[in-house]
């Protein structure tokens, strides 16, 4: 009897060591003035273990065909998960893609992904860069095979989903869990919203200009409606990217690109779907006088903004209050040294 009890206790302890406290549910935190997330958490409840697994996957170049490129290669935490200084995304063998790697944050509030909305759910997003020949160029089944051969992932997978054999579903859900935790809501703007800080006179003036000229598409507090719009960029004939039309082939979708958030602009340059602008002033120049008038142009842009130099300076001052330093330097979002440094066996 006693022997049995000891075994039970030991088994229990082992179980706890494997499962840890990390299978406990985690609640996504966000400010009261944010809308409700669109992500359906009941299909994929956040857990510490699920987030851990997703974070390890995000930083692991094992996902790519030749083991050289991870998600973080083009989505760096220090750049609000964009690829600063690179106009177009990179892949294995020094390949260059056709679009600017977007910043990743507040993904729980988005229901379509990619500049053209080709992906309809955060869970499914990872499939695209994994398989794209100019990105990771790897088959999902091969990724799963590689992960199953690693003790580390058998352990992480067991902790997260009670199954040491990784599946496509679990890989995608873990990816989503980590990305869902990338909430950016601690910029100066947010402090002002919470009554913890005040805009300067210039920032306040910029905020008013923003509401007047930008908010219809870059809607606060997320600073995007996450819809699609044609913002009048002249076509780059070296890329011939017609945006959402490439997916839907519907005339109305020509030149429609997903509206990006204006949070964290200082960390996530260059701007636009093809990264053509390196500076915010160039972006404002475009909206002030560079818009190409055409049938699909967003209605809000038909009338020119006519911002003078002072207005532009004020607007930029306001946009800089959307930089969220706490988010960009958050330890929980960075390379998971502790996970990867664990011994392979136990």
């Amino acid at each position: 009897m006693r022997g049995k009890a000891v075994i039970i206790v030991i088994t229990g302890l082992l179980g706890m060591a494997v499962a840890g406290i990390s299978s406990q549910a985690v609640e996504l935190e966000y400010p009261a003035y944010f809308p409700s997330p669109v992500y359906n958490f009941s299909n994929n409840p956040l857990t510490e273990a699920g987030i851990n697994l997703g974070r390890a996957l995000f930083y692991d170049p094992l996902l790519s065909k030749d083991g050289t490129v991870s998600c973080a290669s083009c989505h760096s935490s220090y750049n609000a998960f964009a690829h600063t200084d690179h106009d177009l995304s990179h892949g294995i063998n020094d390949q260059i893609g056709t679009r600017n790697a977007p910043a990743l944050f507040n993904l729980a509030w988005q229901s379509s992904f990619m500049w053209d909305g080709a992906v309809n759910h955060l869970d499914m997003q990872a499939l695209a860069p994994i398989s794209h020949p100019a990105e990771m160029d790897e088959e999902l089944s091969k990724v799963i095979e590689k992960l199953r051969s690693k003790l580390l992932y058998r352990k992480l997978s067991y902790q997260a989903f009670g199954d040491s054999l990784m599946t496509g579903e679990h890989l995608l859900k873990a990816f989503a869990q980590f990305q869902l935790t990338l909430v950016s809501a601690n910029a100066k703007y947010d402090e002002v919203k919470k009554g913890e800080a005040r805009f300067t006179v210039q920032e306040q003036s910029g905020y008013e200009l923003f509401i007047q000229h930008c908010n219809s598409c870059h809607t606060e507090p997320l600073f995007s409606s996450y819809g699609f719009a044609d913002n009048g960029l002249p076509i780059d004939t070296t890329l011939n990217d017609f945006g959402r039309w490439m997916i839907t082939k519907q005339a109305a979708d020509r030149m429609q690109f997903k509206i990006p958030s204006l949070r964290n602009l200082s960390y996530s340059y260059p701007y636009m779907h093809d990264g053509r602008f390196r500076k915010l002033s160039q972006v404002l120049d475009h909206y002030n006088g560079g818009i190409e008038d055409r049938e699909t142009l967003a209605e809000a842009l038909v009338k020119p903004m006519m911002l003078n130099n002072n207005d532009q300076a004020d607007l930029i001052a306001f946009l800089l209050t959307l930089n969220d330093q706490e988010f960009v330097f958050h330890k929980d979002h960075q390379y998971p040294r502790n996970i990867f440094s664990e011994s392979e066996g136990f």
Partner: protein
Amino acid sequence: MKLRSFLLAIYCLLGSFSLDAQSGATVVQFEFTFAGEPLLLDKSYYSPSLGDSIQLETLRFYVSDPQLVMDNQQVVVATEQYYLVDAAVPGSLAIRFPQTVPSSRATLQFKLGIDSLTNVDGAKGGALDPINGLYWSWQSGYINVKIEGTSLACPARNNHFQFHLGGYQAPNKSLQQVAMEVPATSVILLEIDLGAYFNQVDVGEVHQIMSPSQKAVTLAQLFATSFKRLP
């Protein structure tokens, strides 16, 4: 809900009868043929309409929500909601219902493909795991039917044709409904005649379908009409 309670009432009225019925099972078995012969993947068949030989190397599709609707409107659902049928995997060719057809005849119905709600509901496991290769990675959505093969009549590279038939959004919804009368029997054989299918699909004309389109819808419709019950 009303319908469900109505069905439940009928179920209770016919209690003893249904209890007997529950002891059995109905199996729907898919049988692929080409012009009357059992289809073997990678084997060469002559297609009179192509005027050339044709080999099929991949034949996979989703069947979802299979139901047997009895004469008395009682509905029996299959043991699984989603099936990935693969001509290369003998174990994938059967759909099981937990009871026999108690009435003299019933209607067998299922969807050929994955419905739009499931398409936008995030990652799924089992038959629906994207690892199974019937999911588009660059543009979200399930491939409802995948048919690949070669024919000298096909002008594409290596004479290879690839039909990846999917699309869940208007105007290119490729999901198809299949329904047919079935008798009271425990094994229902469904023949899918690829010979007849390729009499209607000219691989000299259409050889690459890899995204939602009207062509994909048409080819999916034709495929849905290829299911015939064998007496």
